[in-house]
């Protein structure tokens, strides 16, 4: 609607709270982080300008480099393993096999449980002595593969990452809804042309559901970059910082009263996030989020 004169005050009144909150909690924090990333500050004393020192320090810190690479692995696995798996499940359910609604409900179920509760649950699954995983290995006769999953250098990071990749419900539901919105006519025409289900999926469904798939890739990759609770609960970054991620790193720096390096790490995280978003948008599709 066009704005009537007498509505102007109302519009201003209604927009003010949103604008204030958004400015305070989204715009101001980013500016603040950029400024603090150039000072040395414990959060208590007077900040001193140090130029790019903080950035030099974190990029010379092996733990931070390890964190970046862990996050990138995480984001790539999320975008290109988790989401394709979700798309596959959505394709299967789009033909409405028996009980498809139950599958949909159950797949989404882990998403309503908190990351903390899930991580605590999985620490029980991975537990060396009485955990579900080692117990399962014993039962199926692969007992020699038993290990301390979260405490061993080789298995720690994969263990933290993998359990989470198979919770696909959120993305599955978004893609499934998009697929179910595709008009049936397309498929009828394809059937007359003799195209089987797999050809139909590849040539009709996937291209038409592209917008939602790309949105899911974006959301999943950002999710991979901002992991914290899982790692914090399962390993707290250990063993030997093998499972550290960027948010855990900046949290620990903050707890060590090194606000400058913590902010620099946060700025790097936001920058990487922005690059990832722009790359995905430019290569896969512009019309998303």
């Amino acid at each position, binding site marked *: 609607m066009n704005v009537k004169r007498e509505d102007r005050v109302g519009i201003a009144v209604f927009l003010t709270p949103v604008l204030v909150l958004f400015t305070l909690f989204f715009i101001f924090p*980013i500016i603040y982080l950029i400024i603090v990333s150039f000072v040395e500050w414990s959060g208590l004393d007077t900040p001193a300008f140090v130029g790019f020192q903080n950035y030099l320090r974190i990029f010379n810190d092996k733990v931070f480099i390890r964190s970046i690479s862990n996050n990138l692995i995480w984001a790539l696995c999320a975008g290109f393993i988790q989401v394709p798996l979700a798309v596959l499940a959505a394709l299967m359910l789009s033909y409405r096999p028996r009980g498809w609604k139950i599958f949909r409900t159950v797949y989404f179920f882990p998403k309503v*449980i908190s990351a903390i509760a899930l991580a605590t649950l999985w620490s029980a699954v991975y537990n060396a002595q009485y955990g579900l995983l080692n117990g399962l290995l014993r039962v199926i006769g692969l007992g020699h593969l038993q290990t301390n999953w979260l405490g061993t250098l080789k298995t720690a990071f994969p263990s933290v990452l993998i359990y989470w990749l198979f919770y696909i419900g959120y993305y599955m539901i978004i893609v499934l809804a998009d697929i179910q919105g595709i008009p049936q006519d397309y498929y009828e025409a394809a059937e007359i042309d003799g195209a089987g289900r797999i050809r139909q999926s590849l040539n009709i469904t996937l291209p038409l559901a592209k917008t939602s798939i790309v949105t899911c890739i974006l959301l999943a990759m950002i999710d991979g970059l901002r992991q914290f609770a899982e790692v914090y609960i399962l390993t707290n970054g250990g063993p030997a910082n093998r499972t550290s991620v960027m948010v855990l790193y900046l949290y620990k720096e903050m707890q060590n009263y090194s606000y400058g390096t913590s*902010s620099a790490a946060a700025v790097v995280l936001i920058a990487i996030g922005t690059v990832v978003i722009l790359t995905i948008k430019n290569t896969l599709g512009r019309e998303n989020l």
Partner: protein
Amino acid sequence: MLNLVKWAVLLLLFVYAVFPVLWLAVASLKTNGELMANPFSLPEIWQFQNYKKALTVSGIARLMLNSVIISSLATLLNILIASMGAYTLSRFKFRGNQFLKVLFSSGILIPLNALMIPYFVLVNSIGLYNTMGGLILVYTAIGIPISTFIIMGFMASVPDELEEAAIIDGACFYKRFFTIVFPLSRAGVVTAGTFQFLTCWNEFVYANLLTSSQAVRTVQLGIRYFTNQFATDYVSMYAAIIISILPSILAYVLFQNQIIAGLTSGAVKG
């Protein structure tokens, strides 16, 4: 063959989504001895006293109360503020409208966990550190982009004619919002509200950062201390975890249609 693969994949994902939780639920009813001996056995006698112990040791009732207060208030505030913003942005043409829409939705993709220092400094400087008010404020704010986004989608679909008729009847801006557009966007408001509530209920990072005393601790923060509180009494700790996720499961069972409808409405897809 293809059919077989399909069912295998679907069922594996199904089992994966529920089995760990079910395993934990069964384990929470065993004795510690039974758990050590065989992680898969059913309990000889169902140990319901594990739950009693879980309640006493963890003090989870109080944590739940805190979580309910914080999540409810943050949801109410968030939905009210987001609806007001969504109303102006989705139904009026004015300069900067499009810019604000894009700006707000870009907030959805900001990795909020990176903003710990600014949020800490901000909440501290207004004297809300270690208070429920601080968490309510932060939770209200961080849900603004997604809530506004969802509600905008629903409000845009309310026909203009309804509002125009109301204008002729002399209804002012506020009256049109409260009696026409807001009630007709109920589905969107409930969806956004459900999401917001679950987000608040499950939030950990800022609950951990912005509080220090037991009096304002939320459930998620409580779970973190379970390993200390219960030490080697694993089965009682499992019982406490089950108790802590029951409200989420309950909310999901009650509101699953809204949640799925919200995701499928096209609102989240952009």
